[in-house]
Every structure is written in C-alpha cells, then in structure tokens.
C-alpha cells in the first residue's frame, strides 16, 4: 500500500490517484495528437528540408529558417495584409454582431426563427461560401454587376482583381459568414443578464439605448472577450477563402500569412521554412490569446 502524506486522509489520497489515473488517457491523447505534432514541427523548423527530398536526409540548419523570417519582405507584406484583415473583420463583426444580438434580445415574437435565419451563413462550409461570393463578385456575370448594370453602371466593378478592392472584398465575405457566430455568443451573454437588473433600470426611467449601453454592454464583456479571442485566432490564420477567391493576388494584395505558409510548404516545397512560419504563427497567436485570456480573468474590472 502506498504511503500517504501527513495530514492527508488515506481515502482522499487514493481518490487523488484515481483522478490522476482517469486523466492519463486524455493527457495521452492531448500529447499524441497535439503536443507531438507541434513538437515535431518545431524540430523540423530547424532543418533545411524540401518536400522534394522526402526520402533523403534533412540537413540541420539551426536557426537559419528563423533568421530568414526577419529578412523576408514577403512575410512582412503578408503580415500587414493579415493585420488589416483581422482588425477590420473582427471590429465590424463585433459591432454588427452586438447590434443584431441586441435586436434579437429585445424581440418578443419570432425570436427562434430569427435566430435560425441569422445563423445560416455560419453553417455553410468556408470553401462553399467563397465560391458563392466568387460569383456574386464576378464583374462580368455576378449578381452585383447585374444589379449595377440594371441601374445604368456598365462594365462591372473589379472586386477581386483590383489592388484596392480585393482585400476589402475578402473582409466582406468573412463578415458575412462569421458575424452570426458573434450574434450567437453575445445573445447568449445577454440572456444570462439578470432580468431584474434591466427591469430596475427601466423603473428608474432608462430608455432602450440607456439600458443597452449601461446594463447590457457591460454585462456581455466576458462574451465580447471570448468572441475577440476566437475570431482573432481564426482570422489570423485565414486561408481557405483567400485561396479560393484570389490566391493572394492581384500582385500579392491579398496574400495572408496563412496562405503564404501553405504556399511555402506545399507549392514551393520548402517545408523547413514553412514550419518556421507555422511556429511564428503559433507564437504570435499565443501572445495575442494570452492577452485576451488575461483580460477575461480580470473581467471584473469592466463591471
């Protein structure tokens, strides 16, 4: 029988061991499926390895791939595009999402139906969404061009092929698809606000705007932080929509860090550098996420 710590009852110690034993399978899965590949990626980022040399020895390159990160102008360009994409998408999604969630919250009839309709875009696979928007944006045959043409504007608008419109067009697609997620989370947050608090404000003479600003807005701050955390991580790694709609073009105007990493690994076959890029994405996402998580833990400061 195992020895027990002084002051700890034998029954509790065995319970703790049992608890640890029960967690072991889950830990093993986490280690095998998440930490293992991550560690392997980190190791591979130290090698000069081309995908064309799969059966050959990989020369050790030390930190060469990481030094290349610093001097890579294409990475800086992709990073700039990504930051614009993240900030614009997440900001607009948050504002629209809050307003729609508020409208849903204040609905007395048909809330369920409205909820279901609002969520529809989120259900569609991102690639299908991208294909859908590709035809909406098509300057020759697309829906927008047809409408504009009927209003007298001939020639179409170069949404995806124009240097200045391509990135905003991708942002619009993201907003269309992922605002429902924001609505879902914020609406759930609003429903958790004690009703008596809102009633009390109304009794004190607060109008709808005052209630929304002073009661509901502070009440959903934890959900806002949660949305920021998820949407920032998702948009930072955006790949599928960009790949289908523009492939980073025209002239690199929509190249994001996710697309650049994919191309480096699977189009240019430079897996060592692609792994270093992956590590860069991982570390930057971790830094951003830890900031949000820190705020989430201190959410009482917003109250």
């Amino acid at each position, binding site marked *: 029988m195992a020895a027990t710590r002084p002051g700890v009852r034998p029954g509790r110690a065995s319970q703790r061991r049992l608890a640890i034993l029960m967690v072991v399978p889950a830990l093993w899965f986490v280690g095998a499926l998440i930490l293992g590949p991550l560690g392997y990626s980190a190791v591979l980022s130290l090698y000069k390895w*081309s*995908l*064309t*040399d*799969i*059966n050959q020895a990989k020369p050790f390159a030390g930190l060469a791939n990481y030094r290349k990160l610093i001097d890579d102008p294409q990475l800086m360009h992709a990073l700039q595009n990504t930051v614009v994409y993240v900030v614009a998408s997440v900001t607009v999604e948050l504002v629209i999402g809050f307003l729609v969630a508020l409208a849903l919250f204040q609905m007395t009839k048909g809330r369920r139906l409205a909820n279901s309709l609002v969520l529809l875009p989120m259900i569609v696979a991102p690639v299908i969404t991208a294909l859908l928007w590709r035809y909406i944006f*098509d*300057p*020759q*045959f697309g829906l927008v061009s047809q409408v504009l043409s009927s209003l007298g504007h001939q*020639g*179409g*608008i*170069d*949404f*995806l*092929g*124009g*240097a200045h419109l*391509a990135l905003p067009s991708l942002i619009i697609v993201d907003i269309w698809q992922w605002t429902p997620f924001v609505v879902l989370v914020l609406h759930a947050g609003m429903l958790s606000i004690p009703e008596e608090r809102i009633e009390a404000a109304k009794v004190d003479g607060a109008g709808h705007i005052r209630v929304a600003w002073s009661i509901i807005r502070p009440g959903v701050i934890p959900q806002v932080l949660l949305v920021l955390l998820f949407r920032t991580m998702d948009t930072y790694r955006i790949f599928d929509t960009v*790949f289908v*709609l*523009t*492939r*980073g*073009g*025209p*002239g*690199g105007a929509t190249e994001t860090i996710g697309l650049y990493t994919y*191309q480096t690994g*699977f*189009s*240019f*076959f*430079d897996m060592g550098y692609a792994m270093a890029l992956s590590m860069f994405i991982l570390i930057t996402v971790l830094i951003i996420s830890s900031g949000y998580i820190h705020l989430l833990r201190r959410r009482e400061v917003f109250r």
Partner: protein
Amino acid sequence: MPRPDNHLHGPAPFIASLAVGTLLLVGCGSSSSSSASPTGAATTGSGASVPTSAAAVLPSAAAGSSSPAAATNPIGSFSGQKLVLSRWAGDPWTAGQKTAAAEWGKDTSGSISIDAIPYENLHDKQALTLAGAGGYDIIYVHPSWFGEFAKAGYLAPIDSDLSDASKNPPGFSAASYLPSVLSQGAYNGKQYCLPDFVSTVVLAYRTDLFTAAGLQPPKTLDDVVADAAKLNGKNGASGIILPGKATGAVSDVMGSLITAQGNWWYGPTGKTTLDVAAATKAVTFYTSAAKYAPTGLLNDSVDEVSLAAAQGKAAMAISTTPSLQALEDPSKSSTVGKWGYVPLAFTADKPAGELIYWNWCISAKSSHKDAAYSFLQWYTSGAQQAKVAIAAATAGATKDFYTNTTVLAKLPFLTAMNQALTHANPQPSLPTWPKIQNDIETAVQNAILGKITPAAAAAKMKTSLSSNLGG
C-alpha cells in the same frame, strides 16, 4: 535543385524532335492551302480549312514512322486485379477516363477505380499517398512535380515494358511517341511516364467582328494590340481577354511570349538564360493588351477567359487550347462558329508556344505494374487519344494521332496549335519551378496594376530565376 542536364530542355532539341510529328504539319500552308500559312495565317472556327490543309501534308509526316491510328484492344488479362488511378477532377476528362477505364476492364477482366480530386489539391494528395503506404497504381503527374516524384523514387521505370513486344500491340514502342514529348517523362536516363494532354497557348479572334471592322486576322502581337484597341467597346465586347490570375496560365502565356523571341527561362546547364529585354517586351505586350480587357482580368483563370469570350464579352482571347474548346461548344458558347485561331508571334515568320502536357506514370509501390502499363499504353495510343481529343480538345502524343483526319476536323485550332509548336519549349518541370512561376505571375500582375514597369517586372523574373536555379 535543378534536374540533371539531360532533362533540361532548350529550344533546339525540342524543335528537332518535334519535326516528325508536328513540323511537317506546319508546312500545310506552303504545300497546298490558300487559307493557312506557316506565318500564322488564320483558320476558321468552322474548321473547314483544317482537315484539307493538314491532311495534305500528314501522310508524308507519318510515312515510314508509324501506322495510322487504328483501334487496338488493351494487352493482357488481369482478372481480379483492382487498380487505383489518381487524377484531377474535371469533365469532360474525368468522365471520359471513367468510360475508358470501364472499357479497359471489360477487355482485361481487371478494374480501375478513379480517385479524382481538384487540381489544387492533387499534388499534395499524391505526394502524401506516395510517401506513405502507397495506394495508387496509376498517377497523372503534372510536369511541375514530375521531377520531384522521380527523384524521390515514387515512380516505376517503364523502359522494359516499352521494349517488350508482348506488352504492346504490333509495331508499338517508344518510337510511336513524339520523342520531344516522351522525353519529358524521362529522368536520369530512365523512362517513367507516357504523355498525353498535349496543348499550347493560341489566340482566338472573332471572325465576324474582324470582318465587320474591315480588319485582317492578326499576324503579329503588335497587330493583336492594335486590333484590340480598335475593337474595344464595340458590339458590347472588350478588345481582348487573357488570363491574369496566378494559377499557372499567366506563366504559360509568358513562356510563349519569350519563346516567340527565341528565348527561354533557362538553358541546358540549368542556369537562367532569360533575356531581360525579351521579358520586358513580353510584359509590355501583356500590359498593353490588358488595357483592352474586360474588368476583372487579374482574377481571370483560363476558364473565366474562355467563358467570357464564349459569351461574346471579348473580340479576341489568348488562352490554352483545351479551354478554348468552350468557344465552339454550343452548350457554353453563344458565338459558335465565329472564331478563328492563330498562333502567338512577335514576327510573322516565327509563331511560338509553350508545350503543355501531362504524364501518366506507375507508382513504384504498385502491386499491379503490368496491368497499369497495359492501361497506360492503351490509353495514350492514338486511337484512344482521338476520343479524348474530340471530347476535350487535348491532343495525343503519339505520331499516329496526327494522322486522324476526324480529329483534325473536330479541332479547329489544331493548325494554329501546330504552328505554335514549331517554336516551342516544354512547360518547365523543375522542382523549383512553382516558386519561380509564382514570382513571374506576381510580377506580371504588378506590371498590369501599374505598380512596377515592364522592365522592373522582367528584372524581378530574372532575379527569381537566378536565385532559384542557382545562377
């Protein structure tokens, strides 16, 4: 890392080896036809001049080298053998392949299941499958990753199969293929693959609009730009449309444009031979033509180009020959029979193009290599390729394919294609090419956007070639 010297292809060996299969075809204009000439004169969408002119020369091209295309059955019996074939998804090719696979299975008692996935994912899927436990017997390999697969040992050599009389129909051997195209499937002196899907880049122009405007068919690229300027905006059509999206077609057009100036991306030593002046001229053409293109050029792939042209949105279109088939397809085109085709040429006496092709290869891990070879030999033969050509507008790579007058009549752009291939370089198959191709296409896009000059775009191409090819 560049492939070994014997796999780097300059214009000279290519032109020489094409002589048997295609060079004599080009002579059609000088031999008899009044409507076609070796200087890039037109053939019409009706195809009326094509069979006459081409057939007049073809018998002499084929004489002594191969017999005319005749249907033969697949060789061998492979009862119970189940093969898996990897290719990209897209009709009419995939549907045609399924029909052919069923036909092969009926004759040999074997079976082939087709794993067709989007082109964008094909390389990754094939590479991961071949690097793992295998799973594929027959693989459709693009030139840009053929070198990678051959170098990694994923492919089985087929020299002994090609020379084994028992595995081929009477008279069929490596000599049955156009040597210049067959050699693209060789690596380190070993033959790994059999080619098909031969195509190139040509110009299509609306004969009705040209006639109405009193214009002659364009003979040079200067004519193309001038005609595009004159026709732009008339009859609801832009002057010209050409691919602008970075999907490989921009690089194919650029390859044709520099070949038309006697230049190429790299030479036999694997180092870059790009003449910046020639590249500048090519980019200048691209940017000049783009001024008369419909809105959205930089997001147009070959499919969008052919669709817009087929729907009457452009007076001219530069694209790959398989995609241009849409112009003559009544289910897709409102302009059927209104198209003529000419090769790209900076000077009328030197039409040029990039040779586009695909490789059929056998997986080194396949347990059914004999059956796989049986299918490859049968499918790439002239008779089978004739069926593919009529359905999908790609040409075969055997000499007897070019003796099939039915095919010649069905492909109105075949004369222009053959003229283009008299001065041609094969689509690069270097492992480093995808990165270079991306740099070339980004430079062209930036030049069209006006962010950089054509000279600066050409300089960027040279820099990319030098750094990726090691000099």
